[in-house]
Structure formats: structure tokens, C-alpha cells
């Protein structure tokens, strides 16, 4: 067991993936000598060389487009997009090329590409550095989308994503990069595309992923003090969704609150709400409530704490759910 930050856990996970398979490549802007702006690839170029840890020219479409070619050649590229807001120049390559290659070849071609994206706000950054575009990828058939929330998962999920023969868009909660936890490097992880109950409870089911898992857990602690028992589920996988643990929980609690930093409108929460109402309508005591961003672009950082869902807004939704 080692104490690792989430960022370091990713580094260890990547290192192990590279050790296990010489076809695994890391590529992106500043991933080499600098080790990435968040130091997630720190030391990898030194140990695996410039052929396997590639500082690319400054062009996201180029990063993903060349990853497609490398994948065709049998490599397993792990591409870093420096910040969420800079993924869009690569959007065509991701949505039209990466996502559809297997389908267009009638199932013949694997696309073992991982696209790592630090996402979310709360770090006081300037515009384009705090966005949550996960739904835009989850909405695309052919891509799988996951989000880790803690060091243990980060360590294992990145390795599982690398091992996947399907393309995985891998969201990393950037404001949690520096949070530490025990990581058992010999442990046994849950499957990649599974959600998990991280706190058992009886009154309301709170669903979250990425940076909001911690917020949801804090809300559960606060609620506990007021005599309310929240069950918190870390969705972990956004496409495909793993609804079984969610439905099982909702059948017990009858109430659901979904929390994410992304806009509520057409977000992951909307899909979850629809599935819950389809699958366990009669178990519901209240409508599925969503806590997330307003329909505005991400605001200047001085007011981001007011904009982002926080403990109070989660508890407010919990109160409303319980009021039905």
C-alpha cells in the first residue's frame, strides 16, 4: 500500500501499463520533459524514451488523428488533452474517426485509444480551463467514457482503459489531482465499466462522478448530522452507464439526486433520470432531481464557487427530494 495523490496514481498506472505492453505510447503537448502541466506523465519520457512518450506539435486534431494511424499499426496510444476546453480542435477526429472506425470496418478494426482529459473547475483558472464536456462524448456512439474520482480508481481505471480495445475518453477531476489516498497496487479493482456504492444510506440516493463524488460524500456526512442518511454512488462510467447499482439503491430509497459540474441541460443526469423513471417508476417517491451548472458558459473564476454545485446545493436538492 502506498499513499498517492490522484495525479501520482495516474502516473503509476501509466507506468505499469507501459511496462506491461511495449505498444503503449503516451502523447500530447508538454508530456515529455515537463511531465505534463499537471505532472501526470512525470518521469515517463526519461524511463521509456522519446519514441514512447511523445511531445507532439501543438495541434489537438493532429494528436488524435495520428493516434488513429498508430492504433491501426498496432499501438495503444494514450493521448493527453491539456485541458478540457482544448479538446474541441480534436472533436472531428474523436467523433467522426475514432468513434466510427470499428463500425465502418464492420467490427474488424480495434481502436485502443485512450483520450485523457483533465476536467472540471474549482482551481481558479482562466476560461477554457474548467469545463465539463463529458456528455458531448457520452452522446457519441462508439466511444466509451469514464471518470475517476479518487487515487485508487485512477491507478486501476487508467490501466483498464489502456487495456480496452475500444476507445475510452478518460476524464480526470483536475481539482482532486492533489488529494491523497492509499493505493493498493496489488489490489483487485472493480471492472472499468461499473459504478459503485461509496457510502451506504437509506433515505436518498446521491449519484456523482469525478470531482463531485467528494462533494456528495461531504454532503452525506453533513446530512448524517441532521439525521438523514444518504447513499452515495460513484457512477465511474458514463458511457455505458452501469445502472444496476443505481436501480438497486433507488428501489430502497425511492429518491435520487444526480450531481455534476456540467450543465444540467441534456447532461448525464438527464439520461440517468430517464433510465430511473423507465426502470423503477413505481419505486420513486419523488422526481429525480439534478444539481449542476446553469445554461451559461463557465464564469470567471472569482465566482466559480458560487457557480459550481457544492455541499449546500446538494443538500438543498436532498431536502426537496425528501419534501415530496
Amino acid at each position, binding site marked *: 500500500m502506498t499513499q498517492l495523490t490522484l495525479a501520482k496514481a495516474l502516473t503509476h498506472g501509466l507506468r505499469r501499463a507501459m511496462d506491461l505492453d511495449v505498444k503503449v505510447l503516451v502523447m500530447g*503537448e*508538454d508530456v*515529455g*520533459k*515537463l*511531465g505534463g*502541466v499537471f505532472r501526470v506523465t512525470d518521469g515517463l519520457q526519461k524511463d521509456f524514451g522519446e519514441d514512447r512518450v511523445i*511531445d*507532439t*506539435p*501543438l*495541434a489537438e*486534431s*493532429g494528436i488524435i488523428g495520428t493516434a488513429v494511424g498508430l492504433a491501426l499499426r498496432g499501438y495503444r496510444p494514450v493521448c493527453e488533452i491539456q485541458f478540457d*476546453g*482544448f479538446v*474541441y*480542435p480534436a472533436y472531428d477526429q474523436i467523433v467522426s474517426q475514432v468513434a466510427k472506425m470499428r463500425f465502418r470496418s464492420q467490427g474488424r478494426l480495434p481502436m485502443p485509444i485512450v483520450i485523457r482529459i483533465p476536467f472540471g473547475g474549482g482551481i*481558479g*483558472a*482562466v*476560461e*477554457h480551463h474548467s469545463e465539463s464536456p463529458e456528455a458531448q462524448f457520452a452522446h457519441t456512439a462508439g466511444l466509451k467514457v469514464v471518470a475517476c474520482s479518487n487515487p485508487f480508481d485512477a491507478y486501476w481505471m487508467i490501466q483498464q482503459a489502456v487495456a480496452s480495445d475500444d476507445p475510452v475518453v478518460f476524464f480526470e477531476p483536475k481539482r482532486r489531482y492533489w488529494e491523497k489516498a492509499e493505493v493498493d497496487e496489488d489490489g483487485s479493482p472493480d471492472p472499468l465499466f461499473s459504478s459503485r456504492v461509496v457510502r451506504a444510506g437509506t433515505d436518498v440516493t446521491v449519484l456523482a462522478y469525478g470531482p463531485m463524488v467528494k462533494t456528495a460524500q461531504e454532503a452525506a456526512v453533513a446530512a448524517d448530522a441532521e439525521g438523514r442518511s444518504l447513499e452515495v454512488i460513484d457512477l465511474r462510467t458514463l458511457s455505458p452507464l452501469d445502472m444496476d447499482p443505481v436501480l438497486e439503491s433507488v428501489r430502497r430509497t425511492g429518491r435520487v439526486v444526480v450531481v455534476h459540474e456540467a450543465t444540467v*441541460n441534456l447532461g448525464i443526469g438527464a439520461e440517468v433520470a430517464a433510465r430511473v423513471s423507465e426502470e423503477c417508476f413505481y419505486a420513486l417517491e419523488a422526481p429525480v432531481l439534478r444539481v449542476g451548472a*446553469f*445554461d*451559461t*458558459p463557465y*464564469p*470567471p*473564476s*472569482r*465566482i*466559480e464557487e*458560487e*457557480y459550481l454545485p457544492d455541499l*449546500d*446545493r446538494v443538500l*438543498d436538492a436532498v431536502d426537496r427530494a425528501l419534501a415530496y
Partner: protein
Amino acid sequence: MIDAGALSARFDTAHDLVQLMTPEGERVEHPDFSCELDDEQIRAMYRDLVLVRRIDTEATALQRQGELGIWASLLGQEAAQIGSGRAMRRQDFAFPTYREHGVAWCRGVDPLRLLGLFRGVDQGGWDPRDDGFALYTIVIGAQTLHATGYAMGMQRDGCVGTGDAERDAAVIAYFGDGATSQGDVNEAFIWASVFNAPVVFFCQNNQWAISEPIERQTRIPLFQRALGFGFPGVRVDGNDVLACHAVTSAALQRARDGSGPTFVEAYTYRMGAHTTSDDPTRYRLHDDLEHWKLKDPIARVKAYLARGGGADETYFAEVEAESDDVARRLRERCLSMPDPDVLDIFDQVYADKTPELVRQQQEYAAYLATFEDSETGSGTGSAVDADGDREGAPA
């Protein structure tokens, strides 16, 4: 036998750096470009250089003290920005990256406005049409297409090639060496070329894109790429304010005349970190920096003026004092910049606010009011009327 060597031989990398003043402050002649400025104008440029460096230093200090979230310093690039910025006319238009504080200065943009983005109180917030200075653009390269489109608009408005110095206009697009790899930038080159748009592509090659050296973006001098797109390219000593001014003046005039785009590569060096969040000791040698210190853009102008009698110690001292004054006032005003009101952001998204957004704004206002009630017992503020307009909010 196939002779692949024949191709390599055609790969001509000979190039010429336009320079009109040496790092020692000696004026030199160039066959194609000449300095049209008299000593008084050069003195004014010296003042610009010193002031923007001082503003930049103050901003870095403000960041260190927690007053700005981040700052992107222009240290070392003052001459490229002042030389090109002062080549612009009132009716011209600039499209900056996030580092063009010197160009902003030349356009008459209040430096305080630049701080808002970095302090996190706004995202620029100025109207680009006021000073012919677009919003800072962080997404690398995007603004080069905007610049090209704007230039095409000028063309259609009959503001190109009329011969009227008050009317003919051009656009200048700023970007870095790293940006030249982006698709958008290459598309801008193609558009500008095909439509003969009145735009100058002004690339500050400061040798670095965060941690990546220029070799990661190109194998030939950047200005030579222009030819392949169908317009001239020129490399200028980016630390020579006279050369930057002369070359940009010529390129802008060429655009205003209707002769189309030019690529200007200002060869310079990023003397500081990429931003205050960056640690360049992880990826670059100290030696480079020492070498470039000898080419400082301000020292050479000062040496020239002092030697030729264009300015004396009194003048230098005055500029120094003025720069401290500007910095002091900037600091004061920065500290008193108000935080935005979160309820205002709902008003800034659309021309016609959507019903959904109106609802969200009202609900959030009501939600915030519950805290005011419990904390202060007053319940004032945060009032949003039925149309979703905030009381007292600017229209």
C-alpha cells in the same frame, strides 16, 4: 538508382534577419527596409517599451501576491509588440493571443482591462470595436481565422486599396510559434491567400510553446512557410523595435493597398516562464537565457539614444518615474476591481434570454436569498423580476 539526395539539395534554408539596430544600439542599414523614425519618435518608443515592461512586472508581482490567478508575461517580447503595435493606424484592427499587453498599450486599451481575465473577474469584457483590439484568445490559433474574416469584411466595405490613408485599413493577427502547428492557423493562411485578405500574420517566435522548443513545431524557419501558402514571409529581429516597426509598417501598407497578406516572423525569446504557473527550470537551460539577455530590446534603444544624444539621463529618469507611477495606479485599481455578481452571468449569454435561463436565474436568486435571510436577516438583494431582468443591472 533513385537519387533522393536531389530533393534534399532543394531544401534551401538560407535566410536573412531584418535588423535596423544591433543589440549594442548601433543603427544598421537594410537593403529592403529602413527606419523612418526620428529621434523624438524613437524616444517615444523607448517610453512605450519601459512602460509595458513595468506594467508586466507589476502584474507578475500582483500574481505572486495572490491578486491575480495567473499572468502571462511579455518579458523579452516588448519590441516585437511595440514595434508592430505602433505601425498600426487608428482604423486597423488587432487580434491578440493572451500575451499581447504591449499591443494593447499601443491601441490605447487601459491595462486594467487586461488584468480582469487574469484576476478572474471577467473574460476580457471589452468591446473589441472600441479600440480595434479583439478579446484575448486563449484557444491557440483561433483568432487568426477571426482576423482573416475581419479583413475580408474590410475588403467588402471598400476599405482597401482606395489610396485614402484615412480609409484604407488592415488587420494584424498575433500568434506564437506553437500556434503555427494548429489547423486553424494554416486554414487562416489559406483563406487569406485565396481571398487576398488585408491581413498581416505576426508570429512572435519566442522559441517555446510552454516546454516545447521550436524544433517540435517546425523544421524550416517559420517565415519560409508563407511562400508555400502564396504570400511573402519575412523574419525580423523581434528584439529590435525599429526593425519590427519598419517591417510591420510595410506589411500593413501592403495589405491596405490591396496586395494581400504577409507573414512576419518576429524572432525573439520568452525570457520568463510561460505563465506564472510554469516552471521552466524543468525543461530549458540557463545558458540560453544569458545569451538572450545580451539582446535585450530596451537596453539597445537606451544605448542608442544615450550615445547619439537623442535622450539624456533626465529623460530616462522621467520615464522610470512615470512607469512606477503607472504601476502604482494599476495596482491600486486592480485591488479595487469588484468581483462580478453571479446573477449577472445569466444576462450575458444570449441576445434574447431563453425562458429556461430566466427560470434558472430566478430560482438561483431565490436560493441565494435563503442564505441572506438566515445570515443577515435582511433578505435584500438578488432581486430578479418576472422578466428575469435584474434590478439595476445594465441593459
